[in-house]
């Protein structure tokens, strides 16, 4: 079919500046699109607009939106940054946790005596008593602390555990068998809620084209480079923990509850941390264990997990399996989408994934069930559920477009929620990737190297709240801004400095940013892409209050009304009188001996929610080896008011790389006979490396009127789907499961698409759903 480029825009849109120019023309449409995207959001905005609002973002911005290197860059690049893992307290001891080496077992006996007597041991702590059922490879049993790490490891080996090994299930399909060992008292299948609209059966029958297929995604582990853990130290009744966490306040709360001590006695410190991706939002067994060992030994104790423990017991992205039937009419309308899904989050549920992902369809039917297995439990991972739903839905969209002989971008445009931003983003992405080179599935070019293009879109909530801050302006002119958030590598520390400096007319270096400590005013955990929309408004309000308080204090001496003062660059001036001003330090000196100190909190109107994006991927597939190379990714992400363009772009790069790694490499592999994870390391659990990198073409679609938005999760959502579609476009056969390994590519080429799908058992799920329905009919 004809492959005219979709976009009227030039393919040379390369950076944000030219993009902004390009968008200038489109701004009215974009604004309309934003307002129409989410009715509930629009309604909320309307309510908010009616409320009296004191604060807004400055209309002329000096620092906000610039490219400002992160403030902790130098200490990180020189190794000076002190992570929890780097804390060397005087008298520090090392804790190690013994974990279950079976898929499922009962503890027949547990003897700590030999471990307790081993050289250097200062404390032991039992986590699972005799008789307890251990539910997965990596389930914690007991811990020891010793003077040195080697002694702690030696002592761990001396813990005597007698197991009764029990039958286990580590795959979804085994768990669904009628006679499967029961992971949960309520059964291994938790049937999900059915959501439907219209008449999907009729729509499938009436459709001009149909597609039926099964898709599967793997379990992915967060694989943070700094493992989970803390250094815990007691000083009398006060507990200090240096924690590798995404939530200093969450850890404080949990330890306060655990030890039944006032929260005021718990101090959680996280100046820097080595990655979390959702796995460090709350407490883990290692936190309280380290604190227990520290309490019984009277020594500070460090537990930073080892690499295998990190894979086994600190969370993962659940798998997703879906059987989809979909139909479309010849005019390019998606008319029917029926899906039944399942996935495993290990011993916990929470394996949901949204379907169909984003696209409008009048007739839909979707039910996803969670399957319990004897494996480490899931935790939120960078946009939970979305990459899974995206991979499956976008594959179906491409398959339908192929059957309609329609350009996949055009087919998507036809089926977007009304007046949404995605239309714009798809146009821009098509221009960015060179969609004019798109061909129908199967690169006709002779030779083994086949090229393909694919695309996908994303949505995410983001949104802010729950943050307080305090600001002090000292008589010497120095400024501190305190808030109990944490910088998990996203640049939060720098963002706080930029916003404060912008409001006070100072430079980022002039601001002392105090974050990463639970003694600072409350802010929530860094998750859900809510940090920036939570922290920035609080900081903006607090800096504004501090400035007002400063004006109140110094106005009498300056013989000017306080409301006639304004902040200029490095100075305080009189409104409307450019000639009258005092340098910042001169003005602050008037404070005498008493600093200005204020508290503030998050307010509506400075942030918003609802983030959309589109990504396009170009790949080359070597049909002789099956190796997929991603050549380029073009990404267009909606991000409201950008505070720091440099760190924002890094977030998008990181999301794309995470998505690429998910698409091609990562997979937790469980051994069915032993119930063990066979690749809890970085050799066989492969994450993307330098040579896997494509060309990056990243664009911030900044719409400052929306206020600040989070960007941590959205850019990782559509990457795998876009890559999978590009691979199918290159070789003309679809790989139905992630990761897209060389083996699967060769299987697709030589044996067809069914060779790319590991075993699924929808028959068992259907039977369970039918049985449950019968049961409920009986009642």
């Amino acid at each position, binding site marked *: 079919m004809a492959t005219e480029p979709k976009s009227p825009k030039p393919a040379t849109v390369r950076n944000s500046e030219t993009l902004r120019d390009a968008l200038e023309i489109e701004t009215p449409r974009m604004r309309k699109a934003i307002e129409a995207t989410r009715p509930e959001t629009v309604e909320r905005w309307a309510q908010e607009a009616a409320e009296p609002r004191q604060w807004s973002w400055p209309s002329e911005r000096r620092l906000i939106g610039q490219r400002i290197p992160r403030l902790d860059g130098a200490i990180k690049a020189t*190794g000076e940054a002190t992570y929890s893992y780097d804390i060397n307290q005087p008298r520090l001891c090392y804790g190690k946790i013994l974990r279950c080496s079976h898929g499922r077992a009962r503890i027949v006996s547990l003897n700590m005596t030999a471990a307790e007597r081993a050289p250097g041991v200062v404390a032991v702590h039992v986590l699972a008593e005799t008789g307890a059922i251990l539910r997965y490879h990596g389930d914690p049993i007991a811990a020891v602390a010793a003077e040195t790490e080697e002694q702690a490891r030696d002592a761990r080996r001396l813990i005597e555990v007698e197991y009764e090994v029990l039958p286990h299930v580590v795959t979804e399909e085994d768990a669904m068998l009628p006679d499967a060992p029961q992971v949960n008292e309520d059964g291994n299948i938790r049937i999900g809620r059915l959501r439907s609209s219209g008449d999907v059966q009729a729509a499938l029958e009436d459709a001009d084209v149909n597609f039926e297929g099964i898709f599967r995604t793997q379990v992915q582990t967060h694989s943070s*480079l700094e493992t989970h853990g803390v250094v815990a130290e007691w000083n009398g009744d006060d507990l200090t923990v240096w924690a590798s966490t995404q939530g200093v306040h969450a850890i404080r709360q949990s330890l306060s509850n655990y030890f039944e001590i006032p929260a005021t006695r718990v101090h959680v410190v996280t100046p820097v941390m080595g*990655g979390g991706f959702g796995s460090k939002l709350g407490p883990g067994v290692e936190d309280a264990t380290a604190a227990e060992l520290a309490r019984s030994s009277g020594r500070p104790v460090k537990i930073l997990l080892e690499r295998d423990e990190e894979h086994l017991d600190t969370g993962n992205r659940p798998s997703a399996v879906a059987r989809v039937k979909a139909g479309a009419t010849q005019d390019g309308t998606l008319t029917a989408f029926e899906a039944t899904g399942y996935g495993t989050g290990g011993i916990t549920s929470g394996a949901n994934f949204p379907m169909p992902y984003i696209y409008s369809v009048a007739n839909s039917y979707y039910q996803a069930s969670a399957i319990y297995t004897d494996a480490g439990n899931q935790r939120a991972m960078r946009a939970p559920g979305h990459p899974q739903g995206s991979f499956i839905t976008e594959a179906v969209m491409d398959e339908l477009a192929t059957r309609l002989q329609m350009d996949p971008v055009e087919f998507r445009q036809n089926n977007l929620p009304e007046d949404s931003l995605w239309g714009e983003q798809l146009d821009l992405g098509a221009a960015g990737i060179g969609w004019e080179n798109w061909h129908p599935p199967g690169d006709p070019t002779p030779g083994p190297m086949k090229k393909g293009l694919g695309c996908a879109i994303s949505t995410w909530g983001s949104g802010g709240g729950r943050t307080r801050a305090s600001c002090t302006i000292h008589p010497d002119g120095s400024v501190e801004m305190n808030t109990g958030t944490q910088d998990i590598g996203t640049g939060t520390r720098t963002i706080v400095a930029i916003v404060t400096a912008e409001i006070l007319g100072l430079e980022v270096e002039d601001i002392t940013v105090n974050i990463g400590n639970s003694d600072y005013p409350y802010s929530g955990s860094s998750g859900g892409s809510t940090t920036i929309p939570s922290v920035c408004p609080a900081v903006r309000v607090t800096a504004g209050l501090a400035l007002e308080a400063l004006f109140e204090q110094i106005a009498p001496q300056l013989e000017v009304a306080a409301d006639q003062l304004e902040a200029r660059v490095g100075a305080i001036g009189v409104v409307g009188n450019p000639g009258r001003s005092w340098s910042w330090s001169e003005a602050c000196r008037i404070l005498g001996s008493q600093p200005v100190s204020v508290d503030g909190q998050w307010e509506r109107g400075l942030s918003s929610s609802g983030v959309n994006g589109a990504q396009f991927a170009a790949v080359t597939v070597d049909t002789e080896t099956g190796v997929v190379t991603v050549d380029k990714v073009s990404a267009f992400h909606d991000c409201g008011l950008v505070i720091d363009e440099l760190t924002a772009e890094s977030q998008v790069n990181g999301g794309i790389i995470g998505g690429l790694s998910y698409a091609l490499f990562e997979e937790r592999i469980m051994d069915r006979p032993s119930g063990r994870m066979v690749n809890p390391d970085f050799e066989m659990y492969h994450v993307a490396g*330098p040579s896997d990198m494509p060309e990056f073409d990243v664009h911030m679609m900044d719409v400052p009127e929306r206020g600040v938005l989070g960007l941590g999760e959205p850019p990782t959502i559509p990457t795998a789907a876009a890559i999978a579609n590009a691979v199918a476009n290159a070789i003309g056969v679809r790989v139905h499961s992630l990761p897209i390994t060389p083996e699967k590519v060769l299987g697709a080429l030589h044996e067809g698409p069914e060779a790319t799908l590991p075993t699924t058992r929808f028959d068992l799920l259907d039977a369970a759903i039918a049985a449950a329905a019968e049961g409920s009919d009986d009642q």
Partner: protein
Amino acid sequence: MSETKSGSLDPKSPNTKTQGSVSRRGFLKGLGAGGIGSAIAPAAVLGASTVATAGAVAAPVQGRGEMVGPGRVPVRLQVNGEEVAIDVEPRETLLDVLRQDKDTSGDYVDFTGNKRVCDRASCGACSMLVDGRLTYGCTMLAIEAQGHEVITIEGLGTPDSMNAVQEAFVETDALMCGFCTPGMVVAVTALLEENQDPTRDEIRKSLDGNICRCGTYPRIFEAAEIAAARMRGA
């Protein structure tokens, strides 16, 4: 690398001198099958991870070879231009000793910049220079490092006086959580010592032993190119 603080990247630095009370040669003999590959004294009990009870005293081995371990043995290390006197267990890695052991005067050696991430040569977070050669600190025993000049990330610069690579990392935002960064900086520095004008592909290949989870690779490539250009005076 004119900015290098210690100026100790000189590959010609002495590396054959016997230091401390355990000579490298004697250790190799004593180590036997413990990991170096020579099996002169298979009865030695120095397996890096097989010692069940630390602190035991090993029997002397036959012949001229000098037995060390499994208890602590005194060693002297040359790290970032300083001499570090320290008692180590022979099974301890260079990385662990530099990060978490105490020297003979009871102070932490405290070179915590390089990280332990995989602990088995898969990720490069512990990349150091040993006699100028890029080395994983997690797969070299501390006792093996005697007589060699070790440069960790701390030896390449300080926040107030960064080397060209470090400066470029900060400018281009080639770091996020920062945990892989020390290893990346060392690896790029080592590359630019060897190749002053690397292509993008050479940069990628030279960094394939290093993993970043946040996704800073493209900016690390950029930083390497900027640093290379500056070091060439381009």
